[in-house]
């Protein structure tokens, strides 16, 4: 019973090295918080680990993705088998999806957007693995991802349309005198709209992943709390249905992030060149 109390307090308490001003704990304990609690309590190593928690987990995901890609491409065959076949299936699905939205000249964006999808999907799923946490449940991570998209979109816009075309696009492509009269109205709206894109991208991903993590945390806590009157040896996995929901949300949010980035690229690329 002593250990049970410990688990309950551990689930409901804040992390040991919570620097003042940070928000309360809203995730299950992961490898870093457990190491901080029991091994490196109060030392500089623990502080370092707590500080770089999200970076550590996102680096782990990046390393897993790179290793899988290297293994799949180690001995490329014309007729793929095994791992190469599986990876090519994913890549081809992503490519046909992106080319379907942007058009044939969007093929050069497939590496960037496909990487975004795979990284975000794996990051979201990492929140469901015991002793891991979802790096995308931290707002810094999602802002970084959204800023990558923002700068790449603006760079592509200037490169494809030229400076004059880019400014004209921001002014709403005025042609007649009435449209020129509306330029003072359209220019600020378009500029604010450009800055709203990364904001909504990052906040959407952060809010969804954090929300699902809090949901799972609450039901794990309930499952542990049930022990006090059922006298079972182990807790009840009440969070199980929500884990399936979270798998679905992870996939949809990764897809939405990639799809909206794709649409932003499609919007700034010159139209009307596709040969039908």
């Amino acid at each position, binding site marked *: 019973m002593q250990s049970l109390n410990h688990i309950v307090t551990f689930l409901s308490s804040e992390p040991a090295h919570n620097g003042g001003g940070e*928000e*309360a704990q*809203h995730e299950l304990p992961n490898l870093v918080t457990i190491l901080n609690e029991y091994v490196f309590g109060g030392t500089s190593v623990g502080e370092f680990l707590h500080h770089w928690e999200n970076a550590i987990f996102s680096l782990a995901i990046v390393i897993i993705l790179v290793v899988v890609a290297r293994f799949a491409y180690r001995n490329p065959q014309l007729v793929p088998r095994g791992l190469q076949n599986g990876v090519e299936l994913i890549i081809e699905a992503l490519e046909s999806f992106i080319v*379907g*939205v942007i058009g044939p000249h969007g093929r050069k964006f497939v590496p960037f957007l496909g990487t975004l999808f795979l990284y975000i999907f794996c990051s979201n799923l990492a929140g469901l693995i015991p002793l891991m946490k979802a790096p995308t449940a931290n707002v810094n991570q999602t802002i970084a991802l959204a800023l990558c998209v923002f700068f790449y979109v603006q760079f592509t816009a200037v490169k494809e349309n030229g400076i004059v075309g880019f400014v004209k696009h921001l002014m709403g492509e005025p042609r007649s005198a009435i449209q020129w009269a509306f330029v003072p109205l359209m220019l600020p709206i378009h500029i604010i709209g450009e800055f709203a894109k990364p904001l*909504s991208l990052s*906040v*959407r991903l*952060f*809010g*969804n992943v*954090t*929300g699902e993590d809090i949901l799972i945390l609450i039901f794990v806590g309930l499952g542990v709390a049930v022990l006090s009157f059922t006298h079972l040896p182990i807790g009840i996995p009440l969070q199980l249905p929500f884990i399936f929901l979270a798998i679905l949300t992870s996939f*949809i949010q990764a*897809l*939405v992030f990639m*799809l*909206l980035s794709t*649409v932003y690229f499609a919007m700034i690329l010159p139209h009307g060149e596709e040969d039908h």
Partner: protein
Amino acid sequence: MDYQTALAFALPLGVAFAAIGSGLGLGRAVGSAMEAIGRQPEAYAKIQTAMIIGAALIEALTIYALVTVFLLQGKIGS
């Protein structure tokens, strides 16, 4: 009523109202998309893509309310 009580009332209600609006919007969007798929099953992929974009944009509004709650819930305690 001090501001902490006001926050404790307002934050869940804010999410609730945002969810009502998003729910109505999503219901309309998904319902129309289903009708369109039923009428033209061969355009399934295009309709689904457009529907997911719209659903993401609608649902983002509720998420904004939720993020506001995350930002302000620290001010409720004790």
